[in-house]
């Protein structure tokens, strides 16, 4: 068992390294665009005062590449093209290359420095995670609890199960941005109900308020974003678990339990639920990478800071160190989620045994 776990963990680490390396190497092929972002685009300005001399622009571009460490060879080996003949051949660049510098940094816990802000990547990721985890974590926890409660009731077959199922299926069809905008336009709109704040986590003016008032403001600001996330995660979890529970309740052991005089809810809680959880465990494990990656749509609609916006903006502005750091983090979370799912399977169904 321990060896098996160690083996799986090693494989996970290897996969995370491979994933981050591929993203690093692919993204750093486009260094010219990153350099262009650091310089103003003269082709976009009418009557620019900027120097138009091609040689000076090239020199400025070289200076940017040098400052960002992008003037080094990308990898240990690379193809060099000889002009004017056009012939090319493989060449060993040694350890003075971008990948080696990045990898040794990662091994020391240094993910690099943001091209845009000059801040360390770790600081940026931690800052964003501090905003994202309470949002996505609360939403995921409440979604799972709500799904567990609702599915147990739906599986018992009450009279209201059909309209609720229809509602859940309809909700499932709505994209997150529609749900988020609907909530915003309904419950933060002075022309409908202005019950909740429109944006952010608090206001600059509330910084001087009492801790209780600040907590209350924070909670109020989180209600709509969390509700949006719950409403999009809940239908899938509930419908899957309900279907699974219904299937289990039709099996012989459930019939035996009922014949022994147990109530419907007791049969679900004590016998069927654990078996029905198996497919849902994968879904729950899938929530883990989403916890770390953030919820871009919700962050944009409700003007919340977080990982989603950080990574989307890093990708758009070619801030590769932040992007690769984010991929490393979310990739690790996804692979750990798979490991966790395996462990939960083992807990839910002891008949399952790992094959090393």
């Amino acid at each position, binding site marked *: 068992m321990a060896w098996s776990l160690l083996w799986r963990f090693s494989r996970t680490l290897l996969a995370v390294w491979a994933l981050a390396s591929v993203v690093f190497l692919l993204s750093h092929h486009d260094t010219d665009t990153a350099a262009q972002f650091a310089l103003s685009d*003269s082709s976009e300005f009418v009557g620019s005062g900027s120097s138009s001399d091609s040689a000076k*622009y090239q020199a400025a571009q070289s200076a940017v590449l040098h*400052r960002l460490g992008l003037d080094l060879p990308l990898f240990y080996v690379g193809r060099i093209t000889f002009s004017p003949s056009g012939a090319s051949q493989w060449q060993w660049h040694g350890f003075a290359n971008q990948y080696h510098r990045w990898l040794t940094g990662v091994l020391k816990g240094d993910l690099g420095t943001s091209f845009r802000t000059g801040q360390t990547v770790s600081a940026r990721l931690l800052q964003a995670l501090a905003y994202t985890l309470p949002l996505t974590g609360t939403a995921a926890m409440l979604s799972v609890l709500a799904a567990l409660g609702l599915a147990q009731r739906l599986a018992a077959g009450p009279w209201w199960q059909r309209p609720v199922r229809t509602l859940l299926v309809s909700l499932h069809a709505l994209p997150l941005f529609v749900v988020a905008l609907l909530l915003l336009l309904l419950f933060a709109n002075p022309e409908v109900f202005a019950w909740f704040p*429109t944006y952010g986590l608090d206001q600059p003016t509330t910084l001087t308020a009492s801790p209780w008032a600040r907590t209350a403001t924070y909670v109020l600001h989180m209600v709509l974003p969390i509700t949006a996330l719950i409403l999009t995660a809940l239908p899938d979890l509930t419908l899957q678990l309900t279907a699974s529970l219904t299937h289990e309740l039709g099996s012989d052991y459930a019939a035996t339990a009922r014949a022994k005089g147990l109530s419907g809810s007791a049969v679900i809680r004590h016998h069927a639920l654990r078996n029905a959880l198996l497919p849902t465990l994968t879904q729950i494990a899938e929530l883990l990478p989403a916890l770390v990656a953030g919820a871009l749509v919700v962050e944009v609609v409700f003007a919340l800071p977080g990982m989603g916006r950080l990574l989307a903006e890093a990708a758009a502005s070619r801030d590769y160190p932040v992007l690769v750091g984010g991929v490393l983090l979310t990739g690790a979370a996804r692979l750990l989620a798979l490991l966790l799912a395996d462990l939960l399977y083992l807990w839910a169904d002891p008949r399952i045994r790992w094959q090393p």
Partner: protein
Amino acid sequence: MKPTFSGSLLLFAAIALLLQGCSSPEDKSSSIRVRWSHDPETLNVLQPPSQPAFDAANLIYTSLLHSNFSTEKLEPALAEDYPTTQYIGDSLTRLSYHIRSVATWDDGRPVLATDVDFTLKLMFCPGLPNETAQLEFDFIRALIPDPNDPRHFTLECRGQSLEYPQSSGEFFIVPEAAVDPKGLLRRFTLAELQRLPPNAPADSALVRVARQYQAFAPGALPGCGPYQLSAWEKDRYLTFRRKEKWWGSKIQPTPFVLQARPSQLDFVIIPDASTASLALQRGDLDVFPQVPAREFARLQNSSAARAKLAFYSVPSYDVVTAGFNTRRPALADALTRKALGRCFDTAGLIKATQLGAGQQTVGIISPLDRANYNDSLAPLPFDLTAAAAMLRQAGWRRESTADDAGLVRTKAQGELQRLRLVVRYRAEESTFATAALQFQAAAASIGVAVSLLPTEAGSFAATLKSGDFDMYVRTLKGNPFMFNYVPLYHSRALGQSNVTGFSTPASDRLIDAITRARTPKRKSQLLRRFQTMLQTEAPIIPLFFLPTRVAANRNLTGLHVNSLKPGFAITTVERSAVPSPTTTP
């Protein structure tokens, strides 16, 4: 189902929390809250990377000259007056400035010529994010201090241009004493730093200065502007507080560019326009600049919003243009380009994308600039019959044999050319998509096959630069101060910023003459000729100037909504008891 005790307790707590949150003491009167769509990311004073970063730096730091948003002119800010200009021979210009005697840094030290000299040198110090500044200010080759007056200095500039007096004063000044107390940069002349090759071995003194500059937290570098950054929550908000002893207020009457009326400014980051619009209606926001057309119209049509908000719309200096890759053989002749230019229904596009608020133009100089706009020209008409006739005149004929019949022509060498175009535009911009779709439909009706290629913003600039396009639709950002067209249309900028690839010896001469013009009258004549040339050669088709739309709380005064970025005067806004008029034209 009976409610349990814990359930009731939870409900009670939630209601209490809600009431507490709703009644939280939010002092909405002390600060002015402005929406920004994105975080400034950095407050690098040498090279603000975005408009929010520039606006933020503008509050903390001051430049010699500053835009006056009420007159839309550059006016003396840190400088006592405009510089006096002296031309030396035909290749040098000397500009003499005098810094205001009341101007001080946060610690009370006076702002001196040595600070200006230090700032210029810092722009060329290796290892700092200053490359754009190097490109913009490389025309200044030396600062000559006045031995008798530490506030007086002369900037020696390479070349001669009418724009030097303005462009030489548009950079934020950095305090030497804070960044380089030991005067390490004084060992170098500006020319020496400008001559340093990009990959030169690092000089220890320069490395030290660069480290010292970068060691300052964002906004912590002392400035001589009216505000100090008091809070910055990334991706959430920035708060600026007015200095208690702002030197600008000692000058009576205080010039417009040195006024600092709001005691506190909060810039809140709200990426989504709908969210910002709701916040504005609720009173959680005071100013919403650059409102999208449809959101602006929706607010204007809402009676509840009209009661609370004032709406402003003025023309901007940003022009939507279509451009041709003139290096493509099919687009190398002006007649074909002009014919295709007649496929744009500009009036229809203004109506569809700006709800009628844009301004048609003959060129890339704004019609607001009455002195230089060539009003003797007429905007290109939307005329498909004329376009078809001009294409025939250019040698294009329908190819009837092929399945996908299009236009072809045979060149002198017997080579067959096809008129099939790929139009690129930034994927996230609906204005460009609408223009491209309208062009595609119009061009198809005269037999020109057009495919659209929405391109991600980062790749868009790269593809234009590499010439991987036939046509593009984009915005060119303008201002009323600079008329240097070398980056856009000169042969010196081919392969860099001249993305259309257009240049002729005559156009090069004309552009050079504009930059060298000694009098405004001469410059105006040349600019009018330049607009005629652009319309004749048609490397681009200027479509329309975009409007600047601002929606604001009706209780605000002193907004001075104008055509310059960010569209209003941040430092003159005040909250008033009397509501301002609902709308200005």
